[in-house]
């Protein structure tokens, strides 16, 4: 049975048996892939899956219209699976409220609960390789002179229009009151002037330190084409190197920022 057929079968089964009241998956819309929220087993054959299904559906789990249907099932590739594990670790979803229709690299792992998903990730997807091109550019920027780097980012951030599409696309951005919405005090100026855009983009990247699963949703969503994954990838590399921290593999994971070890790096302190 093909991956798609298996997904359809499991989705239908989950909805029929009531183990899921809603299935989050992909469908075709004018030849492009779009999310679908299935509540009726009959619609299961609308579900599709292929390489173009890149959107991280975990992001929908913060939406009331989805949450009211818990327990739900989500079609997820490894990065999205990690997002789901991360959300559970941060108590955003109860372990029993989500079933994962786990799609691996061209194989289907079946309908798994979150513990099983975490185990699958640890066993089969412990080191998901990032695109070579992305890593190459991270090195390239790291190798730049201070001035070059500054110029590069000043130019990049100047494109930001503060539309917050990155925020909406990210499963990790579940705060009802994002810091960017706060105005008393207004830590992050809303002006799309350098100081505002710097503050927002840096804060966004920092708030995902040790939480980002590198699914790429934010960069994909950015209408201005800001290379947000460069920041995410760099931070992810740092925290893995410094603290051996990899997000989304453990339901009991402690937050990176908010934990410590006496032997943490002290070299940068005077």
């Amino acid at each position: 049975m093909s991956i798609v057929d298996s997904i359809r079968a499991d989705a239908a089964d989950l909805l029929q048996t009531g183990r899921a009241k809603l299935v989050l998956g992909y469908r075709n819309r004018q030849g492009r892939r779009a999310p679908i929220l299935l509540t009726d087993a009959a619609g299961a054959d609308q579900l599709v899956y292929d390489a173009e299904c890149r959107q991280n559906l975990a992001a929908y789990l913060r939406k009331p219209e989805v949450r009211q249907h818990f327990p739900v099932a989500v079609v997820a590739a490894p990065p999205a699976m990690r997002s789901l594990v991360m959300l559970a670790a941060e108590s955003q979803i109860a372990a029993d409220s989500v079933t994962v229709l786990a799609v691996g690299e061209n194989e289907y792992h079946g309908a798994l609960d979150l513990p099983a998903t975490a185990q699958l990730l640890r066993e089969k997807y412990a080191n998901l390789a990032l695109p070579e091109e992305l890593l190459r550019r991270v090195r390239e920027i790291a190798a730049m002179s201070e001035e070059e780097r500054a110029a590069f980012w000043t130019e990049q951030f100047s494109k930001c229009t503060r539309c917050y599409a990155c925020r909406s696309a990210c499963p990790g951005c579940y705060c009802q009151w994002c810091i960017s919405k706060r105005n008393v005090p207004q830590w992050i100026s809303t002006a799309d002037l350098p100081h505002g855009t710097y503050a927002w983009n840096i804060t966004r990247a920092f708030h995902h330190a040790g939480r980002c699963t590198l699914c790429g949703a934010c960069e994909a969503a950015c209408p201005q084409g800001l290379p947000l994954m460069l920041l995410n990838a760099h931070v992810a590399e740092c925290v893995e190197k410094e603290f051996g921290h990899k997000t989304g593999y453990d339901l009991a994971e402690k937050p990176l920022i908010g934990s410590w070890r006496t032997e943490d790096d002290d070299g940068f302190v005077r």
Partner: protein
Amino acid sequence: MARVGVFICHCGENIARTVDVAAAAAAAAKFPGVVYSVDYKYMCSDPGQQLIRKAIADHKLTGAVVAACSPRMHENTFRRAAAAAGMNPYLLEMANVREHCAWVHSDRAAATAKAIDLIRVMVEKVKRNRSLKTITVPVEPTAVVIGGGIAGIQAALDIAAGGKQVVLIEKSPSLGGHMARLSETFPTLDCSQCILTPRMVEAANHPNITLMTSSEVESVGGFVGNFEVTVRRKARYVDPAKCTGCGECWSKCPSKNIPSEFDAGLSRRTAIYRASPQAVPNQPVIDAQHCLMLTKGRCGVCAKVCPRGAINFKDADELVKVKAGAIVLATGFELWDHSAYGEYGAGRIADVIDGFAFERLASASGPTAGEIRRPSDGAEPKTVVFVQCCGSRDEKVGVKYCSKICCMYTAKHAMLYAHKVHGGRAVVFYMDIRSAGKGYDEFVRRAIEKDGAEYIRGRVSKIYRRADGKITVRGTDTLAGMPVTVEADMVVLADAVTPRADAQKLARMLGVAYDADGFFSEAHPKLRPVETAVAGVYLAGACQAPKDIPESVSQASAAAAKVLGLFSKPKLEREPIVSHVNRITCAHCRACINACPYKAIEDFNILDRSGKVLRTVSNVNEGLCQGCGTCVSVCRSKSIDLDGFTDEQVYLQIAALEPVEAGAKTEGSS
């Protein structure tokens, strides 16, 4: 609309010399929200405080900034003044223009500009200060005393006498500590055990004192008034409820050759043993390392002979949790190990002993029943050399400080020796004689003049044992300017007094600071000598610095007084600097719960009328929160904030430093 008053202190000339206080006052007057600004010679003086109280009343101030010394100096003074004028004390802040400005800069223009900045920063902060009420937390009126030596016993007895409960924790099987091992005590030469044992018994029997021997502190949680101390009660293999201390067991125990800790290795003990005949509690314990039953699984003689069936080889460590309002540290000291001195035989010469060994030799209850006999062959030493400052005042190999008690006990040793070995020769090498104390110098003089101890001022350079058994002690007489060699039969080294090896571990558990030498640090060397920087934790005895018995006892009583003071009120007032969760915006990611050093944040269910859980959020327990604000930093949505240092306050303080024209509105300060 805020009505802030600014009060700039000259501190005599201290501030006014470098800061143009008049200009600063004029500048401050122009700050938005400032309705009154004045400079005065001594703000902390009575008229100065008068001035503040009057201004608060006259100008209906909603906030006040005193630009003067460090808040550590006078914040309380000024807040009291504000309170007296009917203003909430937490609406007054200080700008530190002395320690942080006037005293560290010389350029008047730059210093003035900086002072004005510092004042503006505090004005912006004070505008957003809220009236706070001091938090009261209940006090658990039980004290934990760690260490069962004379200091711990004294502290425990005094607290108990004050009618409060005490848990007295001693690592070894018996109370008494080092003092129980001493022969006689300077400067009166009364028998140590005669004066100590009654205290030990009293402590053991006191209705308010719970005695925990063979016990060690495992961990400490909580804070002043509400500590939770976890104690490891080590397996003793003897049921204290059944044991009568009859002695059948240790008289029959086959493994007899264990060097006695109590007798400094000069005698042997059995595997089931009491520290000494005067041990309190007077019940044996089994030393698991040497017990044949526990090591090899065969023997069990003690169990067979015990008439009460008190032996229990299955006994195991247990963890006991104790709730306490205060903790007294009385962990005492140990002696520096002179084997580090190669020139003194590197600890390999049997007849070169330390002070405790000599105490045991001189003690009527000691291995020699009070006769001075040298360890190697039990012969009576005709010449004994006493070497002071062994390890003390020696930065390179030993410790840099003076151990304080050695001059006195060495004089005592020389005296006891003279009394016990008639015609014996006592030679004392010393650097200086430090015998400050009531009757102390007279005591040393007596040792020299009446008991004929030969005092030689100079260091000993080499001690070695010749094949014929004689010990050659070589040194210099710096007064005569001559090298001296003494042929001795025994040498007593006055080893330096050092903190307990495991004291630092305990300090870290409690967050108590310790100095470079490992002694616990007092909160203030002169004015708070028995308190530590950690509220509710007090010091007694040699764990803080080398001390003799009278000093240890008086510090112990002082610590007890502090504890009783703390316990005198049922509740304890605390600074209301605690954090609060905004339940509407909290996303419940639990980062704060994970980060809080005091476990003060917990889950909180928001219920609907029917009691159904609508949402779960974080919630701060004010009693536990100590106000560090770590939770605020880990909260991405800023749904948790810290009173006294709110996000808005800090934001405005930073904004106040923006180099822009006056009146330029800063974002968010709406």
